[in-house]
């Protein structure tokens, strides 16, 4: 308690520690829900991949793996800065914490910009999901299905990136007000967990969609 910062925990907890532990566990439980949610898409992907192997291989070629790899690096970097943000909150370094959180948001933004270029390219080429698909199928009757998976999986992931950015912005503002310190940084930790999950999902999405 070197800085003398004490946190007023909610009335139904025994201590600040108790509140922190409970909140973190709550976030973890929520993340299991998220994993199950994405899990459905992954299971669907694997099943259709097995049903139409040639078509999925062909579809993957239509994506630019360089952009995917770039985005992977961007997200991994953001994960690093996020964890640094949590770290600097823990050691009461407000300035560095805010800076790292800002970089995280910037990385999220870069990710979305790259995604935007990818999407607009696909949309111009008519490679849209399902019945909106207008490009040539090159003899792969179900090629639109591949792009359905591409758009649904990256779309749901993109929504999570946006949500994560908003949450990080929220903790950034609070961090800037100096609300966090070694004894209380629960929101940064929770948002951080969410952001890493977003990263985690991309780690799986990237090889499945772009490479295999």
């Amino acid at each position: 308690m070197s800085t003398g910062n004490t946190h007023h925990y909610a009335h139904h907890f025994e201590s600040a520690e108790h509140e922190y532990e409970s909140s973190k566990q709550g976030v973890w439980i929520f993340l299991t829900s998220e994993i199950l949610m994405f899990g459905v898409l992954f299971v669907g992907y694997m099943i259709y991949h097995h049903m139409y192997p040639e078509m999925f291989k062909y579809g993957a070629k239509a994506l630019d793996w360089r952009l995917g790899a770039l985005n992977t690096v961007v997200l991994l970097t953001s994960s690093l800065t996020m964890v640094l943000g949590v770290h600097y909150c823990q050691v009461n370094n407000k300035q560095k914490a805010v800076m790292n959180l800002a970089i995280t948001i910037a990385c999220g933004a870069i990710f979305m910009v790259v995604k935007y270029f990818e999407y607009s390219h696909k949309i111009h080429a008519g490679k849209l999901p399902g019945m909106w698909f207008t490009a040539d199928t090159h003899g792969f009757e179900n090629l639109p299905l591949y792009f359905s998976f591409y758009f649904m999986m990256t779309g749901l992931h993109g929504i999570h990136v946006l949500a994560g950015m908003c949450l990080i912005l929220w903790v950034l503002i609070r961090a800037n007000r100096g609300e966090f310190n070694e004894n209380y940084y629960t929101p940064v930790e929770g948002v951080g967990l969410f952001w890493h999950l977003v990263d985690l999902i991309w780690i799986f999405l990237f090889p499945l969609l772009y490479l295999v």
Partner: protein
Amino acid sequence: MSAHHVVPLKTFLKVFWALIGLTALTVVTAKGMDLHPFNGVVAFSIASVKGFLVMAFFMHLKYDDKANRYIIISSFFFVFLLFIFVVLDLGTRIPQASTL
């Protein structure tokens, strides 16, 4: 206080470079060499290792309470259950229109 375990910065940097390295590896294995038909398995395994690193270090699971580990493992387990039982159906569909 184990909960407020402060991890040295160096660890995070090491993990980060490991992740970047694995990303490069997955690109190289998929694009550079053709490991057909193991492409999928290799890519998925590398992704799993990366996911493990993220969870263990970035998400502090290595230093965390055991309960959270079980919680997150259970989610993967249930995705696996969904997968395995759907595959059980699709994989054993004896061509229905033929005689069994």
